[in-house]
């Protein structure tokens, strides 16, 4: 009898279930554990208290990204707490034998940028990290999700996790994206449709012709914000685009092992006839550049749209909308385009990769940012930084009046000194517009690199399609070719 058709998620899940006692969650084997300085210290302390070692240091990788300054790395770290946390991760990695990409490492960067860059992230894997944007790695057809510090300790101690099997949620996106519309707009549109709790209890699988047409970096942008739709993980089936990206990367299999791995990966996509617990379909052709107006990533509208009025939403949601608009200082019914800005942030694990920087640079090349506006460009990793510099993008940004920084999470989470001041408005390519997320009292509009860069020129929220250079580009000319960026 033929086996029951299975989804991509089910194949990875089934393979990694070590055992499950009646009534207990499954023990799920973890292939790769990514560690950073902010959520891990208490887990290492726990290990020490139990007298345990890291069970599989060779399946563990650490970096420093969240609290690390993006200024001149030769300067001492001004924030004593951050400095202590950064010393702590280095000491923990040394003590427990974990490879650490720290300050000064040419391959340091945001954990979700360097995993793929180094070829550590591979299809079919289970990947965890004490960071909710671990879903990023799902772009490779890996089951990747964020965990808490107790779970970090569990993985360090056992290389497994106790997990209940989540449900599956297909996000089918067909059609061609219009000029000026990209991966960030897809995911913001999805979250606006289903809400920030819409995927709770589920893992997304993104399918459809619009997803297939995306580059790996664009797929990472989509998967990255799965958690903003409530899903711990979001996957995209591996294909030739995936294999082309991975081939030749440092930790990717080589030679005969590569061929064997690709053969294994080709069996991962969801079987014909497999079913999902839920499905939503989105028409890519109808999408427009998206901007958020509120205090969570689900409060997004088209850049041509108007800020909702209280009467536009369900009675039960009115108080929250009123609160959000009061925090944001925005008038219901006004156009989102034209809202004034103080800061533009281009970077983060969502949009800090080379293609994002190329997209932003394509808008800023030969132009100047609006007077009085602060524009911060922060590459996602040191490798991205060097690649951008080799292409002259740093000069484009600096000539336009933007700041060019070392890599890190930076103003996405505002732990390292890069932050909005109280009351300031920022348009940001990052993933969260929660109150205070980018600095206490700061007010965030989330958008794509193109929209952020177009807004940098004007100093107000701007539809990138109003620029001739964007409107004339039917394809993503900033995509990497297979030969670059290894």
């Amino acid at each position, binding site marked *: 009898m033929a086996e029951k058709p299975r989804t991509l998620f089910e194949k990875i899940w089934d393979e990694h279930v*070590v*055992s499950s006692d009646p009534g*207990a969650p499954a*023990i799920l084997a973890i*292939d*790769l554990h990514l560690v950073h300085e*902010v*959520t891990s*210290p*208490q887990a290492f302390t726990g290990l020490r208290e139990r007298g345990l070692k890291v069970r599989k*240091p*060779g*399946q*563990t990788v650490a970096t420093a990204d*969240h*609290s690390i300054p993006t200024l001149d790395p030769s300067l001492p770290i001004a924030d004593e707490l951050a400095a*202590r*946390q950064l010393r702590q991760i280095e000491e923990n990695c*040394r003590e427990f*034998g*974990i*490879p650490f990409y720290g300050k000064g490492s040419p391959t340091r960067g945001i954990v979700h940028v360097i995993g793929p860059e180094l070829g550590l992230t*591979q299809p079919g*894997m289970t990947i965890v990290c004490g*960071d*909710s944007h671990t879903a990023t790695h799902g772009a490779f057809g890996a089951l990747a999700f*964020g*965990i*808490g510090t*107790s*779970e970090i300790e*569990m993985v360090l101690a*056992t*290389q*497994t996790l*106790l997990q*209940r099997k*989540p449900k599956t949620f297909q996000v089918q996106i067909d059609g061609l994206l219009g000029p000026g519309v990209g991966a960030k707009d897809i995911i913001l549109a999805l979250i606006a449709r289903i*809400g*920030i*709790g819409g995927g*709770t209890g589920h893992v997304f699988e993104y399918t459809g012709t619009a997803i297939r047409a995306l580059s790996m970096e664009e797929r990472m942008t989509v998967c990255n914000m799965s958690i903003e739709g*409530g899903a*711990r993980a979001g996957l995209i089936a591996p294909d030739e685009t995936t294999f082309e990206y991975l081939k030749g990367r440092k*930790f990717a299999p080589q030679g005969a092992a590569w061929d064997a791995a690709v053969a294994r990966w080709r069996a991962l996509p969801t079987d014909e006839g497999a079913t999902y617990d839920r499905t939503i379909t989105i028409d890519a052709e109808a999408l427009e550049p998206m901007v958020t107006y509120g205090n*969570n990533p689900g409060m997004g509208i088209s850049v041509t749209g108007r800020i909702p009025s209280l009467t536009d939403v369900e009675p039960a*949601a009115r*108080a*929250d909308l009123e609160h959000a608009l009061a925090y944001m200082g925005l008038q219901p019914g006004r156009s989102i385009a034209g809202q004034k800005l103080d800061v533009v942030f281009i970077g983060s694990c969502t949009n800090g990769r080379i293609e994002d920087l190329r997209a932003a640079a394509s808008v800023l090349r030969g132009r100047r940012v609006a007077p009085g506006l602060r524009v911060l460009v922060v590459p996602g990793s040191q490798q991205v930084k060097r690649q951008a510099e080799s292409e002259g993008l740093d000069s484009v940004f600096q000539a336009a009046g933007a700041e060019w920084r070392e890599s890190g999470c930076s103003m996405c*989470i*505002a*732990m390292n000194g890069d932050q909005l001041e*109280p009351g300031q408005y920022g348009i940001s390519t990052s993933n*969260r517009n*929660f*109150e*205070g*997320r980018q600095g*206490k*009292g700061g007010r965030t509009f989330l958008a794509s690199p193109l929209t952020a860069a177009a807004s940098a020129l004007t100093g107000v929220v701007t539809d990138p399609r109003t620029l001739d250079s964007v409107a004339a580009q039917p394809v993503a000319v900033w995509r990497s070719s297979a030969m670059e960026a290894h």
Partner: protein
Amino acid sequence: MPEPFAKTTSRVISIPRANIDTDQICPARFLKITDKAGLADALFFDWRFTPDGKRRKPPSFIDERRNAGRQILLVGDNFGAGSSREHAPWALRAWGIRAIVSTSFADIFKGNALKNALLPIVVSPERHAGLVALVAAHPDGEWTVDLEAGQVKLPGGESFLFEIDPFARTMILAGTDEIGYVRSRLPAIEAWEAAHPARVDSREGIAAR
């Protein structure tokens, strides 16, 4: 190691807002610690203090004198959205919260809460509306959350049942944690690993320290 937890009786703090994210529960700038100290003070910090550090007037619910010592939160839908920071349940526990009642919880927060013996109690929207009205009418009424019985007793004698993941429930009642349980299954883990060689060796090409 956690202490066993079975039951608490307390008055309730009601925050009717939905989608309360972990950046509100514990702002990111309080995540620079390397231990768990001081997190009670970080709880809902930006709701309690203005950006220039002054206590808000009127004070936030958490600073209202009558709410001191209350152990049960009644909150809107999708509590704990956003970041995976376990500092959020640590801060809630450090302040004294033992149970949170909502129509739903974000997945990562819920898992983190259970690992810290902080009970995420899910109720239907109808029940939730009734509870919000009850607290509005009886702000100082005491509720008893009984994990053993899976029951919340309300002032006036009414009660309702709730479900907690049965495995987590056992762990919380016994005050044990999961690492010991999983380590007792190490032979099965080793057998799995023997059949599934590691996909990567992150130490490859890195000089021995």
